[in-house]
């Protein structure tokens, strides 16, 4: 694990608030995942990849773009690892590294659809401004 990967890992764990050491490799997440076949790295592998610090591989995976965010895995994981959140965290770390994605509050009014619910705006803002 490079220093950069260690930093990314820390960032991902901060974003998702998950504890990867709790994973017992039961595979329940993968078995619950409707997009399993579209993934190169499977949901149950995320905890060990992150534990090892193989962050570049995760960031280059197809998984982070194919995950539906349905959180079936989060709901079903018996150890409360919440792999869907891990995937979400890696995706955000990847997005941030592309640059220029930070949303500023003042940019919002010009971009939004008037029907967009207020909660969505708040949650996007909270997420992207970390």
């Amino acid at each position: 694990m490079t220093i950069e990967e260690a930093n990314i890992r820390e960032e991902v764990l901060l974003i998702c608030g998950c504890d990867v050491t709790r994973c017992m490799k039961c595979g329940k997440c993968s078995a619950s995942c409707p997009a399993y076949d579209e993934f190169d790295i499977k949901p149950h592998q995320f905890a060990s990849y992150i534990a090892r610090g193989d962050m570049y591989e995760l960031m280059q995976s197809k998984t982070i773009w194919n995950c539906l965010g349905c959180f079936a895995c989060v709901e079903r994981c018996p150890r409360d690892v919440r792999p869907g959140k891990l995937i979400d965290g890696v995706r955000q770390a990847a997005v941030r590294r592309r640059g220029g994605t930070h949303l500023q509050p003042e940019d919002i009014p010009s971009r939004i659809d008037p029907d967009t619910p207020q909660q969505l705006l708040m949650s996007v803002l909270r997420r992207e401004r970390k």
Partner: protein
Amino acid sequence: MQRIGVFVCHCGSNIAATVDVAAVAEAAKSQPGVVFATDYTYMCSENGQNLIADSIKEYGLTAVVVCSCSPRMHEATFRKVADKAGLNPYMVEIANIREQCSWVHKDTEIGTPKAISLMKTAVAKVNLNTPLQEGESKVTKRALIIGGGIAGIQTALDIADAGYKVDIVEKTPSIGGRMSQLDKTFPTLDCSSCILTPKMTEVAQHENITLYTYSEVESVSGYVGDFTVEIRRKARYVHEDICTGCGLCMTKCPSKKAKNEFNRGLNTRTAIYTPFAQAIPNVPVIDTEACIHFRTGKCGICAKNCAVQAIDYEQKDEIITEKYGAIVVATGFDLIDLKPFGEYAYNLSPDVVSSLELERILNAAGPTSGHLQRMSDHRQPKEMVFIQCVGSRCEDDRRGKPYCSKICCMYTAKQAMLIKDHYPDVNIHVFYIDVRTPGKAFDEFYRRAVEDYGVDYIKGQVGKVTPQADGTLLVHGVDMLDQKVVEINADMVVLAAAVEPNPDIRKLATMLTLSIDNNNFLNEAHPKLRPVEAATAGVFMSGVVQGPRDIPETVAQAGAAAIKVVGLLAKDKLKTNPCVAQSDELYCNGCSVCQNVCPYGAISYTEKEVRDHGVRDTRRIAQVNPALCKGCGACSVACPSGAMNLKGFSNRQIMAEVDTVLCQ
């Protein structure tokens, strides 16, 4: 003034590495009352003990302070030494300079002053100690076993064989427990009833054993050696002493739709019933909710048919009171509720069954007479899926348990092999997380399922079981080793559900002041060194009530519990702890605060005439029953007038300790 000796232990390097023991002994010499102080490598060794005993005699010591490990470890040892040397054992105080000092600090700069401070505190206390006398209490030579599963049965037999009287209280109409519901048992595949029934009969015939089935413990009072227990004998509506067990009533009973609990609800039974053919006692009970007579006042067929007039619809619950010296809790377990596991379709399809239901299906006396069948259409399944760890190892406390249930890996291998033996054409797939088979001949047993019987083990949990229109069950999972989705059209799915302690244990724990863990398993007095004793003296445990285990382990533990009971019952008298509470009648104003906080019900009140400054007065005064008091000290803290004192830990003694710590 006391003549105090202070003995500082090195505990090898356990204490000496972080505490300058010589400095502690030196500092002791200038403490009030101290006439002798020394240090030694191992105070608990024979030489160390002799050193204390000799010094008591040589310096005429009236009190001793040992600076060593926790009093839990060696207080009893050093009290014995004092006793032998002619000193009242309660004149010994321990300063814990190991667990509370050397083990928690890294350097001598902190360790030594703290050890000195602990030593001074103990000296301050022992200056106020007074000799205390242990009392004696009698031992009722009879034991009570709560729960008549294999654990309770074996414990009772072992105690009874040693020559003591034993009563078993069993909640259901028959003894036998879960083991009577099993078909064959791992690892030797002997038939469960064939090995259990002889033991049940032995219990019934043993001259030292009294059975109270269909009964429950109503209340418990008293203490080790002398418990008083009220037992509710629920009305059977059949006289146990008259019934011959012919079973005619059961064949005649027209109410046949009651859920058969013994078969886990897979079929029905009559309103008057015995749970199974080999039930002990072989005396039916009437389920009043199902009985036509109790619902409408009509019927009465069973009574009419009973040749010996054993049936009595007017029978009432009966409460009996009995005295016991020891109590063993053996209330066993059940499987967790499977309803919250929606993804496995347990509620949706009768062909998704629990492991215990499968035991009944495989059993010749079960709902399908031992034929492997789907409960929906009575077809023999061709494709079967077993799902392991259902609700075990699960942090989600809304539906699961964090522990491994320990027995399911083994019984699944057993069930798979039993099925393959009779139906070689059935394909069996087992979805597992880990296969856990430690134990004598256990892993070989599981490997036999794979290698000789071709059972297909798949590493990975199942995501979903979906009932299909054609009556099959689509099982969707992944094989984590191949990284492939596995979909199986199963005819039957078996869930290895987590075990949990019988929920009754909560009520019993309150009655017996037992401690239970987060999962409702009983806590032992010490997890390693006192594994069958509860923290409450005189109460023991046996079987799954303490934690998941199989039959061999249960039987071994039952023997261990029995020998502990026998050891207790063999004594004629027990020594009682003299460190009990005592109220000072001049201070007590009868406010009842102490009675409300006492967890052991040891406090009562009397009207007493007292003389206060020459004035005669009748007052309500607290009285402590020393036999019930456990010396917890709750009352002495709660008493607003400072009237309540714990002997050996009086308010003055404790304040002296506090003052010493604070004034340094």
